[in-house]
């Protein structure tokens, strides 16, 4: 599979908008949208949990070309904390309960819009990586925190 492309991010944005999905870009892909220069493999989305959003997510994913079985679609609607998709045109991680963030609505209020992409605030991205406690996140945190200081100076949010 080829690397995730800007065109595909636009497709997510447009399909999710059409289906009314409530979501935010999070993780390193979110930081990259904010301007953070680093590498990653797939896109991470933070999604509001609940049957209505779940139905909208499934519809949007199918529109994008993900091959979801009936059981997989039902799982997304019923609600999981984490779903990893590699059965579509690009890899996608669906996170419904990221470490370090209590409520989707709070994160949504703090979101930043970048070219129409709803993105978690840099402080929420850092909080999530800190709380995950993963070795790869711990290693990248000092540079991400430095970017936070740069971003706050230039964006004042």
């Amino acid at each position: 599979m080829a690397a995730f492309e800007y065109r595909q991010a636009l497709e997510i944005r447009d399909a999710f908008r059409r289906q009314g999905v409530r979501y935010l870009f999070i993780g390193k892909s979110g930081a990259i949208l904010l301007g953070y220069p680093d590498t990653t493999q797939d896109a991470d989305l933070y999604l509001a949990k609940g049957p209505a959003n779940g139905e909208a997510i499934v519809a949007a994913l199918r529109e994008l070309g993900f091959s979801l079985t009936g059981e997989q679609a039902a799982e997304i609607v019923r609600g999981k904390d984490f779903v990893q998709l590699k059965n579509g045109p690009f890899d996608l991680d669906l996170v419904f309960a990221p470490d370090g963030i209590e409520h989707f609505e709070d994160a949504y209020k703090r979101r930043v819009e970048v070219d129409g992409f709803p993105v978690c605030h840099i402080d929420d991205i850092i909080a999530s990586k800190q709380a995950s406690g993963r070795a790869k996140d711990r290693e990248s945190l000092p540079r991400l925190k430095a970017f936070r200081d740069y971003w706050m100076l230039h964006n004042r949010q």
Partner: protein
Amino acid sequence: MSPERAAANIPQDWLAEFEAAARRPLALRMKYSFIRTYKPVLDDASYRSFDTMEDYRRWCRENLPSWLGYGRV
């Protein structure tokens, strides 16, 4: 700490990278940022789901090679 003081502590090489990225349009930033590398085990299934993040962390700990960095420290 004020944003100005905090930003003054950014190492010069990182600052240069942040400023260079800020000059690039989003499409180019994404082109430079998203790469494709095979990750053993993690990339070997087309779909996985976990009821809780704790279940996911446990699965990572028990199934992924430690050098991938998904284990908790």
